[in-house]
């Protein structure tokens, strides 16, 4: 009798454990289904496509061919554009960090009106990214605001050609990505106890020393999270070079766009987009290995 009751008790406990083990999966099911259908399945399509071949005209040839991958991995053209893309992304990220840190510091240390400042920071997101990028044409163009002002002030006689080069591409990217950087740094600065700076001052540090040795190191996770976000977003853009770049200026995503849309070569475009995904994914993994994803989640939240 006692034996049977014990067994029934064990069964009951097991079913509770089983239910508890199941529960997170049930709760996660909608999110997992969405990710699976909207991310994993399309990604698998792209993986499969990258092994197909484009025929000279008409439909693609299904099968398992390594031609696209061989071309993507061995052709110097793609390598050069990839390195150039990473270079432009790195410059953009550094510029965002240098411009974004003082702004984030100012917002985090301002008294009372933080919310207004944060809303102001978010304001640009209400306008389309393409419109924001195109606004530079009206500012820097030959008959744009800056040239008109300089001519009116008598500083120059003829308008200066400022648009359509790599510098304007980086300018457009910085304009687009700066808020992401500021937000991430702000979150990490906001979490630092200001008493620490006071403590440093009481121990004889100047304000600058206090900043360098206390505040800056403590805010590095936010800076790194913002940096990663800016870098990855910059490396994946193609609109900015199209609008603000010259004939030669292109980033890797432009090659994907051209392969898929202009050359109708979906297999090659798939291989190119996977290569970019792998390179950026590797960067995210390295970041995660050393700094962890928690800070990034905080910044985005």
């Amino acid at each position: 009798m006692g034996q049977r009751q014990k067994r029934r008790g064990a069964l009951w406990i097991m079913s509770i454990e089983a239910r508890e083990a199941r529960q997170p999966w049930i709760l996660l099911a909608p999110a997992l289904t969405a990710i699976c259908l909207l991310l994993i399945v399309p990604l698998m399509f792209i993986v499969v496509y990258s092994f197909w071949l484009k025929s000279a005209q008409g439909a693609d040839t299904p099968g398992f061919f390594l031609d696209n991958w061989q071309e993507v991995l061995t052709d110097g053209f793609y390598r050069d554009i990839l390195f150039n893309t990473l270079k432009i992304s790195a410059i953009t990220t550094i510029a965002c960090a240098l411009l974004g840190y003082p702004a984030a510091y100012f917002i985090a240390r301002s008294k009372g009106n933080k919310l207004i400042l944060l809303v102001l920071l978010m304001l640009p997101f209400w306008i389309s990214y393409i419109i924001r990028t195109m606004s530079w044409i009206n500012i820097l163009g030959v008959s744009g605001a800056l040239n008109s002002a300089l001519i009116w002030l008598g500083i120059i006689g003829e308008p200066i050609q400022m648009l359509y080069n790599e510098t304007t591409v980086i300018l457009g990217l910085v304009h687009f990505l700066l808020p992401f950087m500021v937000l991430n740094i702000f979150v990490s600065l906001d979490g630092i106890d200001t008493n620490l700076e006071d403590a440093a001052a009481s121990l004889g540090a100047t304000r600058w020393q206090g900043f360098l040795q206390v505040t800056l190191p403590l805010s590095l996770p936010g800076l790194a999270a913002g940096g990663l976000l800016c870098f990855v977003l910059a490396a994946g853009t193609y609109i900015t070079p199209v609008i603000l770049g010259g004939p030669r200026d292109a980033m890797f995503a432009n090659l994907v766009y051209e392969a898929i849309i202009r050359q109708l070569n979906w297999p090659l475009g798939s291989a190119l987009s996977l290569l970019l995904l792998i390179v950026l994914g590797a960067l995210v993994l390295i970041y995660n290995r050393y700094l962890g994803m928690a800070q990034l989640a905080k910044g985005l939240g």
Partner: protein
Amino acid sequence: MDDTRRYERLRERFQNGDISRRNFFGLLGAAGAAYGLQMPFARQAFAAGDVSQVRFDGWGGVVSEAFRKYAFDPYTAKTGIKVVDGTFPGGDEYLAQVRASQPGEYNIAHLSGVFDYARYHSFELNSELNLDNIPNMTNVMPALMNAFKSITPDSLSAAPYNYGTTGLAYNRKHISDEEMKEKGAKILIDEKYKGKIGGWSDWRTRLWYAALQTGQSPNDIQDMDAAWDAVRKHRDLALKYWASGAELMSLLAEEEIYVTEGWSGRIYALQEQGHDIGYFDPPQSFGWQECLFVIKGSPMAACEELINFMLDKETSIAVAEGQSYPPALDPTKVDLGEKIPKLPAFDPTGTLSGLTFANPNYWNGNEADWSKEFARVQRGY
């Protein structure tokens, strides 16, 4: 038991409190839906459901407005079929969308060039029009139809609609008409205008003009290396490759560039806005025609009727005046009014013998290689 008694019983149960208010209204709703589904008009409603709308995709802007006013609205009033109109930025993007769609999702498209017709044919996206349902086709210039018949000899998938050229546009403040005439296509690779030259980021146009700059026939380029070198030279001298008609107009109007090749209708629009921009078609300038293409899987009868509305004289003229491209109607058969004969590229003879069109077999046959090569050349290779 008839329906009335059924409802009375239901109401009684509700008033007695046997069923909840929610159930009562739920059952009423279900009864209404069931009635709607099996009533005499349902059959008609379902039949119309087969073709309740036709989708048209075009270049947007004034053209869409003219189509809506003169063709789509009268068509809907007559047939009850709605016309959904979409826009696309370019033929390549649109073909990518159509390839990724389900049959029947896209119906009629305002496609550019005979080579596009051939491309849709090679992707097996072509349909067969019954010309008896499109009486207005008799007014169309035979020269434009023959181009399509060379690809699909037994049937047509499209009705020709308008034509134009991609010639040279120049700012007359900085470049005189005489200089333009003298230099022709070579002005686009003239060092004198370095940094003030533009061009379309389209590999066909780039190579067509490279052929003219190197003294070759655009439909039979013998020295490809020389042609690519001309493309490279233009790339180095150019400030910007434009990607849309709006960008072309803005670059010229803002004086960012002084010379580029351009679409005749867009340049005419700039001139009408009062900008001092000249337009010159050099010998063997890039001629093209646009058509109304019916994509495979579309409701054919509905599409044919819509095309007939769009080919109507009044619609054609209004659209032509709106977009500044001459219509496909034969000027020897139809009175095209006063404005159209003044449009650039207009051919009063109706034979179009003065224009050079791209040979679809030649250009499509080389598309895979040349479009890929251009992506490289553009980036400095």
